[in-house]
């Protein structure tokens, strides 16, 4: 048994947890946390939503169960944007996690609490979930490693869905070695999630990529600091013996609208289950009629961004619009997958910055429109839309804030990402945040 840090004091400062253990010692071989949209027996699971407040699932999500089987001690549930709807973890009903490098700035989203915990707590492994970039974005903003595996590599049983065809459970940690150790531990077929049963085999032995392609479209619209860090990162890759070449992938610009159409379409149906009868809040007036009860309940407890995405997704599936939006987005996703596959015939991976800017201040976020926020995801969306494994490694600092390098590999090739991260870690001078200053 090893002592746990004073989680209350740490959480008072950084607000990364929605709930956490009051134990003083770790009853396990290592400590981990789970994003709050993964169900857990011993903690409430709210997915950052007021509508699920008080929900205590009677079962563990498969990735949580597998971490426990690997010897993990679950220390708490990490804060997140409501149902994963956000880029900055500013859309939670339970407060906003604060960036450990500058508490006036965002941790990124939607697994912001997970990235914060990985950055602040020693030897901590965080389970995160990505739909459109929700692991690598916060990993980049908080200066840690984060991997989102191939769609279907990790069971989604017990995950409170955002979008069925896009959700992936992955790992964040300050150490690349933790990704290589624990991603295989949570991976593998699970009869409770049929999408996990098509994977061709286990994750291979990590090995470094030999070549990467840099899409010319991905280096437009970057902040100066991110561009400088990215160029230095490419030099580091070359010094590791990796060939780096620029390519054109013009179809990438269509990934963002296709993603948001599919993600919100799926979200609008997934969230239909939250009607005040089975999970979380159930204080509605049962003398109301069926429709009025559901409507009053959902209107009261869904947050602003959840309502916006439900409306968008309902619209894109409506008669008269579904062909133009939903069906078209499915066909565009296939085009983006084809474009990546062509690149993988010549290169092992695609390299881009993870985010186009370092973590913004909260006052800057408040001034962004919904579309501005969606556009900020233009680098992380393509690998998520296509279900391809992708990883963010810390690659530099701009004005003291971390910058991330993102690598994307072909379906089921997590071995290339993990091997490269392990090599990268040996040569990267990582700075630690002043966690308890």
């Amino acid at each position: 048994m090893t002592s746990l840090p004073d989680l209350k004091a740490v959480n008072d400062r950084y607000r990364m947890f929605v709930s956490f253990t009051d134990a003083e010692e770790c009853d396990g071989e290592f400590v981990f946390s789970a994003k709050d949209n993964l169900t857990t027996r011993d903690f409430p699971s709210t997915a950052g939503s007021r509508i699920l407040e008080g929900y205590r699932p009677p079962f563990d999500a498969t990735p949580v169960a597998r971490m426990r089987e690997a010897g993990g001690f679950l220390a708490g549930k990490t804060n997140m944007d409501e149902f994963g709807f956000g880029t900055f973890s500013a859309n939670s009903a339970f407060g906003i996690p604060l960036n450990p490098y500058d508490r006036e700035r965002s941790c990124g989203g939607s697994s912001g609490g997970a990235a914060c915990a990985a950055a602040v707590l020693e030897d901590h492994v965080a389970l995160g979930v990505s739909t459109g970039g929700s692991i690598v974005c916060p990993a980049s903003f908080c200066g840690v490693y984060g991997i989102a595996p191939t769609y279907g590599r990790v069971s989604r049983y017990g995950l409170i869905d955002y979008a069925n065809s896009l959700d992936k459970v992955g790992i964040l940690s300050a150490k690349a070695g933790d990704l290589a150790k624990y991603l295989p531990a949570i991976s593998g077929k699970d009869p409770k999630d049929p999408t996990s049963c098509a994977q061709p085999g286990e994750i291979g032995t990590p090995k470094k990529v030999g070549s990467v392609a840099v899409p010319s479209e991905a280096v437009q619209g970057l902040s100066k600091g991110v561009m400088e860090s990215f160029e230095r990162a490419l030099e580091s890759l070359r010094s590791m013996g990796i060939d780096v070449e620029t390519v054109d992938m013009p179809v990438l610009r269509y990934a963002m609208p296709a993603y948001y159409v599919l993600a919100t379409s799926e979200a609008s149906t997934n969230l239909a289950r939250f009607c005040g009868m089975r999970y979380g809040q159930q204080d509605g007036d049962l003398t109301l009629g069926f429709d009025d009860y559901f409507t009053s309940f959902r209107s009261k407890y869904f947050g602003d961004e959840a309502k916006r995405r439900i409306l968008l997704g309902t619209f894109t599936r409506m008669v008269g619009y579904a062909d133009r939006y939903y069906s078209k987005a499915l066909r565009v996703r296939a085009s983006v997958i084809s474009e990546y596959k062509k690149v993988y015939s010549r290169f092992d991976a695609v390299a881009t910055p993870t985010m186009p800017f370092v973590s913004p201040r909260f006052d800057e976020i408040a001034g962004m429109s919904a579309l501005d926020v969606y556009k900020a995801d233009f680098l992380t969306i393509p690998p998520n839309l296509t279900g391809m494994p992708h990883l963010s490694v810390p690659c530099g600092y701009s004005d003291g804030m971390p910058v991330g390098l993102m690598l994307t590999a072909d379906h089921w090739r997590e071995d290339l990402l993990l091997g490269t991260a392990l090599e990268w870690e040996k040569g990267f001078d990582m700075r630690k945040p002043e966690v308890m200053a």
Partner: protein
Amino acid sequence: MDREIVERAARIAHLDLTADELDRYEKDLTEILDHFQMLDEIPGEDTEGFTPVPVEDVLRDDVPSSEIPPEELLRDMRTYDGYVRGPKLS
């Protein structure tokens, strides 16, 4: 996206929006959908796969099973005589 369509989508989604919310979402969704018009520029592939990688059906034997006792599932629900309580059907 005009206000009438926002109201229609809200009705379908069981959301009762205030006048301020309707104003805000009408503006936001119009801006978002204007941007999404770029999807018209690209034909896309002929296939409409619902998942990014192939998946296969996994079926269990057709026999009743539950790892979680029903009483545990009912623990957090409003119940009456073992049944889940809901609103009126009328």
